[in-house]
């Protein structure tokens, strides 16, 4: 990936943190924690990796990778990090997300050759414009299919 793509920022998107989606996500990740459950009028907190579902609210115009040529067969998900500036988002929260390509860099691979890294960040703000959460993904482009 071209280092000149650093800083490339997509259009903002709006995400509603939904009660049913929290329940579905918690169940899919094998949690029985009652803190992630609730009925009408409840506002349970969302699981720690829940913002991975933000893609449901993002069209191509909300992705900084739209139009970037990548060989997806050679791309590995290296790391993923979620940061919360307070309790994680709750059901009913309306968040505005902005995704950008934060860093593009190269490292020497263990078996020789260069590996290319790209970190994308999505910042989530609440209705008051306060930064409440960030999601940072690291992608690794290898020279051959991963095994």
């Amino acid at each position, binding site marked *: 990936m071209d280092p000149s793509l650093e800083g490339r920022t997509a259009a903002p998107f709006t995400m509603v943190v939904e009660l049913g*989606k929290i329940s*579905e*996500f*918690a*169940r*899919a*990740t*094998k*949690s*029985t*924690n009652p*803190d*992630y459950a609730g009925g009408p009028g409840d506002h*349970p*907190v969302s*699981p*720690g*990796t829940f913002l*991975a*579902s933000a*893609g*449901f609210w993002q069209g191509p115009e909300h992705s900084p990778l739209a139009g970037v040529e990548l060989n997806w*067969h050679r791309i*590995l*998900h*290296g*790391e*993923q*990090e*979620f*940061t*919360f*500036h*307070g*309790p*994680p988002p709750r059901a009913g929260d309306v968040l505005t997300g902005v995704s950008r390509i934060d860093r593009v860099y190269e490292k020497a691979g263990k078996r020789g050759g260069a590996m290319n890294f790209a970190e994308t960040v999505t910042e989530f703000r609440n209705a008051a414009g306060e930064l409440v959460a960030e999601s940072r993904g690291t992608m690794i482009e290898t020279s051959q*299919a*991963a*095994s």
Partner: protein
Amino acid sequence: MTGTGAPEVGTERQPFVDTPLTVTDFVRYQGASGDMNPIHHDTEFAKAAGYPGPFAVGMLQAGILSTYATDWLGASKLRRFKVQFREQAWPGDVLTYTGKVVGTRDEGGETLLDVELACTRQTGGVHLKGWATFAT
């Protein structure tokens, strides 16, 4: 930390040994997260891409590792969760989730707990390494 109920440095949580991974687990998570990459459920697609078959969705095990930690230290107390994806995991794998409090620190008038986490395959190979920070 005495009196706050927060665990001390060195405290480990009882490991969670999951039932063997199934493609159904992957599909359920993919539906919940919206990541429908066929490489995790479509055998023909995975083979065409050079794999013996579908492999596990790393973010599923990351999610299980996260809830393993929040079931212990509090869903609303989580402030940071990070995973590094190591060896791939495969259908049939029996994964063990572990966690240990490795530090406490004061930041912005709050006491934070730092936790190290791991998800290990039955072979001993590390599938995920994880790090979490909790408010107390």
